[in-house]
């Protein structure tokens, strides 16, 4: 840099023009840099308007909606404009794809709605601008599906009382803001049953992104399921500290396999790399988030659970259309059709499939509750007393592992 200045100074007398030119280029580069920086930081705002046709009149009144929404013909004016935003790409064969498919199902069931979608909106600032954008395009029902969307949506709910916000997997509530989600722990318990029967080394591997409350709950449910059929089963946990660092996911999967793990499962954004790595090592795997994951492990796939929320989102939409919508915590499980168990892989024996079906029947009938006390953690401390049940609220802040899990949760 110093030399650069020297040269420019030396040439001021003779080449004043060139100095100006240099300065111009430097400014131009900075400007381009700044423009690209801004572009990279705010993709969400740009996505929303391009993906949807802005209606000419934005006043869609939910109360005037047709009485039989399922049979309504495609009108020129949509009966309801729905905005949906996702934290990642909608083709990730994971969580975002599952949420996207659920939103698309609304349109299939209620043809007169119009849907505005925005993917790759991971941060709070992006979520706020994206939702504001959707509202200005006339959206009066918004599905915010990522963890980070909850508080931006809640804040906007206060500013826009005419808009209804539905957020996935949160806990807040207001007069026009509510939450919906599946009941993943039940599915994880069933997958644990399958894993506990399939394993020969009695070691199950869990690739996790971050030590979060829900992740710990999934791991605990998985281990409890495995223990119910195999008292020697252990679940070994390793963290990647990223939702999408694929190379580290592969490293982590291999590391677990090298510890003798012979069934692998995961809680990361997209299961694809973990599944294909396990497949390449000849190790069984269990998917999560979306059932489309099976393609990555054609031979060693055991099963998986995924979200199938299309039916419930359609129902929520119809209540908005007929004016009966109320803020509720909608939590629904496999028996309600909100989550599904994937098809079993080619190497899964019938007895394993039967055991999973049995566990499901017991859960559906209420005879089996996954986090029914007494539950003891790794150190032997009683976390859920005899006769008590771990509540949904507590599940989201779990920072302990049940006895049988190998790893540290904080």
């Amino acid at each position: 840099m110093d030399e650069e200045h020297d040269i420019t100074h030396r040439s001021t007398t003779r080449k004043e023009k060139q100095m100006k030119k240099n300065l111009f280029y430097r400014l131009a580069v900075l400007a381009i840099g700044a423009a690209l920086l801004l572009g990279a930081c705010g993709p969400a705002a740009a996505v929303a308007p391009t993906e949807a046709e802005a209606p000419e009149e934005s006043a869609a009144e939910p109360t005037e909606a047709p009485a039989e929404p399922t049979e309504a013909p495609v009108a020129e004016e949509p009966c309801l404009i729905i905005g949906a935003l996702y934290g990642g790409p909608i083709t990730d064969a994971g969580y975002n794809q599952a949420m996207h498919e659920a939103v698309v199902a609304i349109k299939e069931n209620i043809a007169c709605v119009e849907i505005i979608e925005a993917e790759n909106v991971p941060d709070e600032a992006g979520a706020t601008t994206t939702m504001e954008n959707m509202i200005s395009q006339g959206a009066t029902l918004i599905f915010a599906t990522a963890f980070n969307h909850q508080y931006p949506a809640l804040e906007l709910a206060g500013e826009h009382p005419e808009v209804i916000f539905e957020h996935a997997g949160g806990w807040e509530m207001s007069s026009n803001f509510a939450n919906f989600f599946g009941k993943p722990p039940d599915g994880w318990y069933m997958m644990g049953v399958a894993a506990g029967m399939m394993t020969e080394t009695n070691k199950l591997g869990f690739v996790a992104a971050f030590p979060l409350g829900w992740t710990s709950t999934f791991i605990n449910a998985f281990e409890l399921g495995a223990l119910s059929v195999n008292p020697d089963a252990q679940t070994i946990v390793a963290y990647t500290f990223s939702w999408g660092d694929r190379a580290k996911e592969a490293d982590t999967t291999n590391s677990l396999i090298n510890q003798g793990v012979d069934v692998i499962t995961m809680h990361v954004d997209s299961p694809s790399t973990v599944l294909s790595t396990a497949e390449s090592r000849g190790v069984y795997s269990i998917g999560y988030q979306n059932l489309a994951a099976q393609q990555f492990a054609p031979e060693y796939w055991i099963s998986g659970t995924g979200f199938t929320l299309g039916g419930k989102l359609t129902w929520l939409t119809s209540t908005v259309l007929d004016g009966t919508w109320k803020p509720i915590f909608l939590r629904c499980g496999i028996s309600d059709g909100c989550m599904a168990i994937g098809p079993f892989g080619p190497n899964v024996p019938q007895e394993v499939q039967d055991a999973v079906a049995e566990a499901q029947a017991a859960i559906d009938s209420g005879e089996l509750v996954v986090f029914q006390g007494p539950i003891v953690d790794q150190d032997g401390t009683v976390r859920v007393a005899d006769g008590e049940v771990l509540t949904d609220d507590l599940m989201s802040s779990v920072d302990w592992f049940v006895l049988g899990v190998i790893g540290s949760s904080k």
Partner: protein
Amino acid sequence: MSLLSILGVFSSAIFSGTSLLYTTLGEVIHERSGIVNLGLEGVLLVSASSSFAVTVITGSPFLGVLVAMLAGALMNMVLGYLVIHRKANQLATGLALMFFGFGLSAIIGKPYVGMRIDGLPRYALPGLEGLPRLYASLFSFDILIILVMPISILVWWLLFRTRWGLGLRAVGENADTAFASGRNPLLYRYQALALGGLLAGLGAAHLAIAYTMNWTEYMTAGRGFIAVALVIFSRWHPLRAIAGALLFSGAVAFQLLLQSSGAQISPFLLDTTPYFLTLLVLIAWGGNRKQSAPASLGRVYHGSE
């Protein structure tokens, strides 16, 4: 800890170190010519997304490797035009290139997120065919892993045993002197960037279509910057870069081994091990030896009069 888990650390170090090593080698070459490329992260992403896209479309991972190399070279040419021809500041241009790469790779890769590909085929090392699959698969390498050591040596030979390498290093030390001895610094820098781009492309291809067999936005997760750091760590020497890349990725594999062997240590702490270890090595080496960064690294060559 079993034999399998210890062998596994070596295997993981090789698998995830390969992309780092290719990228580091590329950066060594153009830093030797006096150009810092802070946009490496963007170069990697564009190469990775285009190679993945081509592999999906054509079904041929080898074609994907080729396209990754071309994309890497092309991205570096953009940097070259700005910093060599237009004499822009290298650091600012590099960062701009990185953000450009974020956006461009997202656009290129968008239709291919979540697609399944058959990655580069892996070949079992001779003599290991009889082993159980669990062991044999640890040391079944694809062509990019097999070639990474020979290419490192080739880069060393190019830089330190050929007239071209001498000229390149001369440009990196003092472009005016190199010009006086009849060498064209601009041409050398373009050549270094092109070669570096080809190598970064190989690294990106290994990441996307050999190791993870997947494309996601920002999947490089900082590997471009780690490569820039490894260049300093290896003191601008291609053979020390091998040690640097293996050490870093080995440390990642080792901390994962500690996690998965049930060590009751906070995973947050374990995750910092590779960076901590790198710091320790830098401290141990110290600065007592002569600083070996190319003398005119990062400086604009204004031409000689």
